[in-house]
């Protein structure tokens, strides 16, 4: 149980970090991390099929296409002026 609490906590922090990071590459890695922990949680929830899918699709391939897209565009989020 304690492991799950820690995992959820880390996952939420990673998700928030994905929103905060200015460097999009870091943000994408954080998303991959979220997916990876989600895969572990799926395993705890007795869903091995979904855990495999999330690990291979969510954590690996999504991150890969994000990185390709960032490479084709721009790596840094510009400073926000005004709101």
């Amino acid at each position, binding site marked *: *149980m304690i492991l*799950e*609490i820690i995992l*959820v906590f880390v*996952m*939420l922090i990673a*998700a*928030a970090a*994905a*929103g905060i990071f200015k460097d*999009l590459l870091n*943000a*994408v890695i954080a*998303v991959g991390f*979220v*997916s990876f922990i*989600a895969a572990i*949680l*799926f395993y705890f*929830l*007795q*869903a*091995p*099929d*979904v855990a495999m*899918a*999330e690990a291979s*699709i*969510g954590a690996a*391939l*999504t991150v890969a*296409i*994000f990185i*390709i*897209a*960032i490479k*084709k*565009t*721009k790596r840094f*989020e*510009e400073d*926000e002026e005004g709101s």
Partner: protein
Amino acid sequence: MEFIENYLYYIASFGLILIGLYIILIKKNLIKMIIGLSIMDTGVNILLISMGYLSGGTAPIFSRENLLPSRMVDPVPQALVLTAIVIGLAIIALALSLTIVLYRHYGTLNTRKIRDLKW
């Protein structure tokens, strides 16, 4: 403690959904918004799976003898989530390709700077 035990996965899923929604609403960078979408998808998937969980259940696979159907977790949400994960990948791929083309046209990813692209 019991509270956490009962609500841990709901906290995880709705935490992710709300963080994702917040990123989509606040951020002006398109890739950031798509990141928010991806986080939101993950949250929804955790929600669906936790809806079908049975405390102390086993995975719905008859891999050994003496596994009882009544002690297995619900296979239906797992099937739904498999579908949802693939759909999420499809949407994200399409969104990123549109972003690439948009960047070719405008040279920026900031939605403010892109003419009347505001929401």
